[in-house]
Each structure stands twice: as C-alpha cells, then as structure tokens.
C-alpha cells in the first residue's frame, strides 16, 4: 500500500479513537472548550489529508462534522446528546470509509448523504453562516480563499502556510484547509504538486516551531489559539522578554492584565501534553520482533560466555562477562518493554461502546476504570480486545438493569461498570464487574436445557456455580434474543476459548441482585512464558505452566500407588479421583520403556484433567516462544518451539492438541462414562470403611452406601437400557449387567429409570456377579469425619450434613432381588438365571 495512505490510515484511526473518547467526555462536561478544540483539530487533520489524497466523500463527511464542531467550539451551539450521537455516527462512518480504503485503497461509494444531512441540519443555517465567518476572524485573511476549497487547484501561496504555521495556532487549520483543496479540479498534477510543497513547507515550519527552544513563544501561540490573548499582546510580551524581561511570557501577560491566569495555566498544560507527543516515535512491530529475537540470541551467547568465564582459568574474562551479563539483562528488559502497551489501548474504546449500547437500551451506565496503565504485551492486547468488548456488551445488555428497575431495587439509577486491571505474579488480572442484577442460575440452567446444551439430568447434578458457568458452553448464547446487542452471534464460549488460547482463564462470580464480576487472568506476554521442561525419548519438551497442576512420582515397587488398567485405559487414583493417564512416549510415537519410577505431570487442558507420563522432569524455566515453520506448524501436538540455554530446541507441547490426540476429550462411549472409580480390587484398604457414597433418590431422599462396596460409578444414557429375561440390563464391558432401580427396591416411590436421560449407576461386585444400582444422582463422597454416628450399631443411620441418612447394605439390597453367588467361581454371568426377578425392576423408558 502507498506509504502515504497507510500513514494516513494509522493516524486517522488513532485520531478517531481519540475523538470517540473525547466526545464521551464532552457529553459529561459540555463546556470543556479544550476538548472541543482537540476534536476539531483531529477531524480537521483527517479532512485535510483526505482532501489531499483525493478521498472526496470522506472529506465531505469530515467537513460536515467539522462544521458542526466549529459551531460548538464558538459557542453558537451547545453540546447535546443528539449532537453527540450524530458526531459519533459520523466518526463511525468515517471509520467505515477508512476500512474500505485500507482494503482497496479506494474510498468506494459509501452512502454519506444521510449523515451529512443530519449533521447539516444540526448546524442550523443561521449558525452555519456564523461558522463560515469564523475562520476569517481566527486566521490571517490570506488563508481564506484556499480554505473554502474551490480555488484549491491553484498552488497555494508558498509563504502563506509556513508563515501561518509560525504565526499562530490557526496554522493547523489553515494547513489542512490548504491540503483539502480538491486536486481533481483544474490541473490536478500541478495542484497536487503545489500542495505537497505547501504541506511540507508548513510541516517543516510547524516542526521547527515545535522544537523551538524558546518555549514561551509556543505558549504564546497556544494562548492565541485558545483565544486567551491577542496576537499583538503576545508579540508585545515577547518583545518585552527580548528586551531583558526575565519573566515568563505567560506571567508578563497576566501581570499586564492581558490574559487570565487560569487560561495561561491551561495553555501551559497543553504545551506539556504536546511535548510528550513529540517525544515518541512509531516503530514497526516487525522490527521490534526482530530485536526481541536477537536479544534472545544474545542471552544465549551470554550464558555460554558466563559458563566459559566460570570454568577456572579464564584469562580475565570474569569482569567483562559480568558486565555483559548486566547489560544483556537490561537490554532484554528494555526490548521487552517496547512491546508492552497499557491496557488502556483497548479500554479506551469501551466507554463509547457502553455509551452507544446503553443509550440504545435506555439504560444509564457509568464506566469506571482502575489500572488503565497496566501494561501487556501487544499481542495479548490484540487477543483480549474482542473478548473484553464482548463481556462489556453483555454486561450492559444483560447485567445492568434499566433505571426504573434500579430505582425499584433501591440502587442509584446509574449503573456502574467497573474495569480493573492489575499485575500479579507475571500475570495480569482484568476484572469487569457491574452492580447489576446478577445472574439467575436457575434461569440460565433452564435456558441451557432449552437449547440442548445440557440435559435436565445434568443440570440436576450441578452446583449453582456450575449452572452459571453454563454461559461459557458452546451453543449457549443469549445473544439471539437481543439481536445485534450482545455481539454478532458470538457467545461467551468464544470469549472463553479466545482467552484460553492465549493461556488465560475466565472466572465468573455473580450474586443475584448485587452484580456480576468476570475475572480474566492472562499472562503478561505470549512471547515469554513460564514452562516446565520435561524430557522424553532424549528430547526435551516444554509444558506451559498454566496447564500444570501438580507432579506425581510413583516408585515401581510401590504396590498401592500405581497405575491401574481400566479396561485398556491406564488410570491413576489421585486422592480418590480417577486420573486418566497418557504416556508421552505413546503420543510421540516412541517405543515404550520400563521405568524404574514413573513421573506423572498432572495437567489440565480445557476442563479435562489428565496425567502425562514423561521420562524425566527437568526444570521450570521462562521460555521464549517461537513459531514453527509452516511445514510442521499444523501438528496437533506442538504449539511452538523454544531455544533452551544450551542452544538446542525444545518443542512446546500443545496440551489441547495432546488431549484430543489421546482421545481424552471424547465424551462417554457406549459403555457409559466412568465418573468415578472407587475400589478396583476388593482387598485394597485405601478407602476407609466409614467413607460413604451419598446417593440421591428423587428430589429429596438420599441414602448412603459404604464406598468400599462400590466398584465404579458409571453413567448410561437411558437408551442403553435393555430388557432381557424380564429384567433391566445394560451392556457393560462386554457383559450383561443387571440394573436394580434402587429407590423402589428399598421402599421409595420414585424410579431412576423414568426420570432421567442419563442414569447414574453404582456398580458393585458380588463375587462373579456385577450389579448396577440405578440412582437419580450421585451426590458426594463423605469422609469419616463428616459422619456423625448416632442410633444403634446394627441399624445404620447416620447424620450427614445435618441430615439423617440411611446407610444401605448393598448385599442385602441386591440379594432381595437377585441370587448372589457366594462361591467365587460361579457360572458365567449370562448363564445365571434371574427368574425370581420381579416388578421391582420396571421397564426402562427409553428401551
């Protein structure tokens, strides 16, 4: 793309962002002339440049907006929400045209008439006339003919812009006016060339002016520009100064009563602001990335040199290598910093979003930001932009109530949206909270069921927090009902995925009637991440620390603590929970080896926890993430590569990819999903006799069963239930397992078979007989400490969580409906007769 155009785009976008913010501020304090002027100036620059580049429509639009602004600036009109809306809409349209230009280098054929008419209407004819006259008062008369554009084809008077630039603040305006001359009129070539000369001349003069050591002269300019002092007055003051007056020019003016002290102060502040702008430059990000790479390389070389220097006789290498070390570290830090940007770069756009949305919805929302200056790597800033906007839109849309509702609830009519960012141990926390109505967990759950995201059965087993978290599920988007408000068909699931993609997490806390808080945690930078380095088959691999939960080491001779085989799937019992195990060697296609001890890295990817067996665990390290070449970047297993201290490469494992390769993410198979594995071998003493499994029957009733009796917990879809020989069975691990509906069998009225889509089953072994007890819900595992025994020793009733609960004896329950084989070697299960099975086992609904 043409460099001039691309520069124009960058600057215009920046300017528009600024205008957006300023307009919002302006609405709150309509009398702030400084801000008005800033908006005016920015728009003016855009208008000027696009005229120069030949984007006539864009120019026309900008001109109309500018016209309206000039009236505001001169106090002919006062700011109103209507005007703000029109101006914001104009800014939006300008943005649209800029986007077209960015894509095609042409402004296309946008329909700007409506907005131009709207702007013109707001600037009433009378006022407009006054506006026409305004520039003549402010700027030297010589500028006027070019300012109106039509005569623009004539090359501008070479001196006029330059003179104007040094002369006063109207220069900006005039310069832009000059440039805005329509090049298509008359001799375009000459016109354009003339303008280029004129522009450059003016710019030079402007810059020279800016850099002028004599800051007071600039202050004078600012004062004139602000209308706080007359040009002659300033000139007189400057003259006094040159005659040896030691006072500052502002002071001279104030002392002589030719300017207000307050205005002089304001001008001084503006001056300060401008010099900040002058002290920064634009740098191509690619260059920064390259620098970053080189610094990384320098760090490696430094490491090697330090190694050399510490090896005994080093021939005086010590001190210089020490210095090299320090300088490198500082350089690394510095280069890292260049990539950091304050989070405000994203936040700045949000007040506008909130304003538009809340107006549209008739709400009243105040945005407050804490920690604007919190810095993040620019790639992360990019990545969180959309998720943040989405959450904010959602909050305004669904979270904050209408003023009436708020008043009724005894809250201030104006809702509060609080954005807070802070650093915390190499991470950045971003909180988006509101004082709205909070989320209704039950309503969300119902909605989720309606949309088929979850089944009612699943919901029944959910805690409130889990229900609320349903909004992160794919397919759950409340956006549909509110059309374009809460995003363009993107749900919160996309927010979650996007945040997780950059190694972050989203948490949600909500309290009904009080408000909702989204908490996003993201790494400071994507370029450097903390990682655990492991080795496998003589190669090293890096595992991002965010995925890491804990490390487990198993010794080969430890009988109790070992990896067990669950029907071909290796699992490990981690604190009573079943952890699926994946051997990294299998995943990498390496040969399996016998290991003395087994290192398990417990990881979480998405919502799945699993253990990864590696050969050895090396160290944790901050690694620099480097992209893979296109020949290998599509491999699921790897997210990138990094260069280790010794200069060798380690691949970074992509745990999501790994989990899906290892088929960990797949939901239940035909056999049902193993939810929990209690005791695999009956002689195991891992679990205390007093540990109870709490089962739910129907809505309220619950019973407990000693966990030691429980073989496994499974979940079957109701469609998997079959009838055979007048009993309900299910195919389980290649066999037929009878199911007993627990509730009717022990005297309760409801049935697990009728009410559920997915049936929770407690699998128990009685010798060679495997029986499933169907229940409505598996509630909890209650340890010994939580059980308060009361009653007698033989009738087992306990108090669990202040509720009296019967402890059932699985053996007697099962033997009441099935003959339990006492000897260990009974005939095979299928051959066992269950003729005496009666109506205690009703037919399944789905079969």
């Amino acid at each position, binding site marked *: 793309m043409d460099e001039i155009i691309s520069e124009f785009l960058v600057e215009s976008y920046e300017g528009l962002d600024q205008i957006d913010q300023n307009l919002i501020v302006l609405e709150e304090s309509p009398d702030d002339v400084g801000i008005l002027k800033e908006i005016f100036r920015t728009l003016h620059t855009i208008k000027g440049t696009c005229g120069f580049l030949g984007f006539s429509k864009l120019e026309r639009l900008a001109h109309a907006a500018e016209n309206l602004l000039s009236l505001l600036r001169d106090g002919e009109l006062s700011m109103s929400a209507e005007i703000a809306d029109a101006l914001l809409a104009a800014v939006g349209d300008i943005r649209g045209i800029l986007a077209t230009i960015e894509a095609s280098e042409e402004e296309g054929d946008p329909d700007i008439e409506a907005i131009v008419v709207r702007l013109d209407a707001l600037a009433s004819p009378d006022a407009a006339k006054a506006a026409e006259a305004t520039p003549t008062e402010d700027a030297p008369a010589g500028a006027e003919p070019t300012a109106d554009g039509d005569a623009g084809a004539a090359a501008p008077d070479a001196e006029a812009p330059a003179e104007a630039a040094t002369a006063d603040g109207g220069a900006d305006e005039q310069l832009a006016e000059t440039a805005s001359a329509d090049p298509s009129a008359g001799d375009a070539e000459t016109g354009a060339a003339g303008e280029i000369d004129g522009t450059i001349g003016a710019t030079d003069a402007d810059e020279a002016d800016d850099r002028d050591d004599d800051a007071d002269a600039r202050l004078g300019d600012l004062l004139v520009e602000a209308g706080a002092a007359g040009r002659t007055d300033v000139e007189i003051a400057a003259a006094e100064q040159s005659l040896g007056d030691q006072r500052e020019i502002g002071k001279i003016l104030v002392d002589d009563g030719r300017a207000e002290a307050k205005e002089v102060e304001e001008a001084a502040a503006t001056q300060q602001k401008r010099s900040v702008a002058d002290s920064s430059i634009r740098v191509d990000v690619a260059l920064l990335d390259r620098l970053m790479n080189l610094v990384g390389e320098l760090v490696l070389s430094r490491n090697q040199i330090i190694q050399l220097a510490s090896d005994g006789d080093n021939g005086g290498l010590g001190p210089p290598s020490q210095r090299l070390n320090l300088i490198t570290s500082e350089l690394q830090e510095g280069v890292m910093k260049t990539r950091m940007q304050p989070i405000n770069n994203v936040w700045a756009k949000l007040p506008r979003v909130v304003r538009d949305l809340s107006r549209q919805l008739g709400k009243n929302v105040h945005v407050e930001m804490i920690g604007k200056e919190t810095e993040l790597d620019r790639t992360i800033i990019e990545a969180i932009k959309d998720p943040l906007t989405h959450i904010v839109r959602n909050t305004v849309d669904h979270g904050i109530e209408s003023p009436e509702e708020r008043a009724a609830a005894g809250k201030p009519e104006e809702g509060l949206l609080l954005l807070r960012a802070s650093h915390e141990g190499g991470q950045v926390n971003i909180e988006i909270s509101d004082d709205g109505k909070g989320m209704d967990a039950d309503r969300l759950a119902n909605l989720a069921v309606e949309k088929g995201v979850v089944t009612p059965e699943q919901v029944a087993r959910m805690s409130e927090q889990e229900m609320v978290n349903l909004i992160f599920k794919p397919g759950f988007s409340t956006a549909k009902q509110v059309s374009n408000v809460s995003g363009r068909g993107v749900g919160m699931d996309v927010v979650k995925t996007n945040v997780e993609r950059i190694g972050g997490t989203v948490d949600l806390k909500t309290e009904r009637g009080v408000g909702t808080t989204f908490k996003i945690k993201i790494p400071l930078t994507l370029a450097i991440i903390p990682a655990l380095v492991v080795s496998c088959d003589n190669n090293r691999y890096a595992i991002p620390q965010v995925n890491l939960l804990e490390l487990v080491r198993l010794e080969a001779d430890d009988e109790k603590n070992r990896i067990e085989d669950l029907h071909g799937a290796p699992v490990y019992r981690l604190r009573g929970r079943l952890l699926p195990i994946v051997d990294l060697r299998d995943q990498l296609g390496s040969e399996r080896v016998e290991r003395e001890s087994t290192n398990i890295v417990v990881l979480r990817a998405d919502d799945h926890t699993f253990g990864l067996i590696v050969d050895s665990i090396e160290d944790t390290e901050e690694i620099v993430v480097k992209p893979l070449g296109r*020949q290998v970047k599509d*491999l699921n297993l790897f997210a990138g*590569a990094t260069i280790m201290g010794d200069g060798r490469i380690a691949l970074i494992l992509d745990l999501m990819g790994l989990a899906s390769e290892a088929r960990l993410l797949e939901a239940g198979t035909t056999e049902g999903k193993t939810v929990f594995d209690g005791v695999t071998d009956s002689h195991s003493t891992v679990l205390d006799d007093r540990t109870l499994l709490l089962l739910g029957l129907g809505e309220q009733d619950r019973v407990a069963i000693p966990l030691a009796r429980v073989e496994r917990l499974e979940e079957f879809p109701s469609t998997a239930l079959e009838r055979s020989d007048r009993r309900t069975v299910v195919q389980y691990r290649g066999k037929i397992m009878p199911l007993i509906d627990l509730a009717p069998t022990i005297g309760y009225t409801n049935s697990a078979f009728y009410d559920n889509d997915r049936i929770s089953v407690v699998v128990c072994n009685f010798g060679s007989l495997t029986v499933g007890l169907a229940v409505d819900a598996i509630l909890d595992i209650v340890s010994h400490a939580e059980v308060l025994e009361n009653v007698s020793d033989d009738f087992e009733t306990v108090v669990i969580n202040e509720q009296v609960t019967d402890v059932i004896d699985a053996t007697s329950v099962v033997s009441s409906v099935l003959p339990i084989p006492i000897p260990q070697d009974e005939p095979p299960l299928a051959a066992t007769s269950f003729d005496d099975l009666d109506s205690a086992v009703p037919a399944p609904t789905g079969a």
Partner: protein
Amino acid sequence: MTKGNQMLDVSTTLNQLCTFRLGPLYLGINVTEVREVLLQADVTTVPHADDVIEGLINLRGQIATCIDLRRRLGIEPREPDMVPIHVVTMTDGEPVTLLVDAVGDVVDVDPDTYETPPTTMDPNTRELILGAYKLDTELLLVLDLDKITSVGPGGGHKGEPS
C-alpha cells in the same frame, strides 16, 4: 508494511545457481534463495512430522525446519556415516534448510542450455524440478524451492505469513 529487500531483480541473477550434490544428482537453486551453508547443526526431531522433515535447528534464534532432500526427492537414504550439509534457504520469510551430501560452487549458467524436465521423469520428482541446464560434463537440475518446501499436512503451502 514494506516487503523488505528480498525482491532483488530476479532476471539478472537467475543465471547464477548455488549447486550441490545428492547421490547421483547435481542440483542447483537460485543463488538469491540461499542464505548460508551450515556444515553441522544440532537437529531436534519432530515426532509425527512428515517423513521428509529431518527436524528443527536453531538458526541464531530462529527456528529453521530441515528437509532431507534425499527423502524429498525419493533417493535412497544416505550412508549412516555421512554427515549431511544444511543449505539454508528463505521461503516466505521462514528459514528452511535442505540437507544435501556436498555443496558445490556457484555456477553461471547459459539460459540457452536450459530445458524443462523430460516427461518421462518420475512425476513426483518432476514436479519438484523446474528444469535442467545442459552443462558440458553433466546435467544441472534446478529445484523448485517453493514446491520442495511445501510439505506437511495438506500440502503445507499456505501463502505468506501475515
């Protein structure tokens, strides 16, 4: 936004080829496409990568993908004791090294002696070769670097990285 300085005038340099040997073959690629030659490098293997990918090396902080040219061209594997040489090339801004047996000179070639590969050639190999220069002593095959480096799932070639 600028493309960098890689866009040298191809027409004037097309006739200079960096040559190397691979088994019985005498091969060349445009000299402007070659960045450097490494006599040895520490290669990290990438499990599950395409068969022709030898692995990755650290090229001064950049990760370069190594392609075994023998496997890429379907020539029998080199003797175990033969240490391959890395010819470092840049394609689409990413460094890729080609593993060859030996590196030859930079050769000036006469465009008049150029011919497209014969149709009788193995189609898989033929696709990777732009043509041949008939030198006095032997044939110098010009490799199509873009095609050579397009390996990986789905052909791998995805245009320029943004």
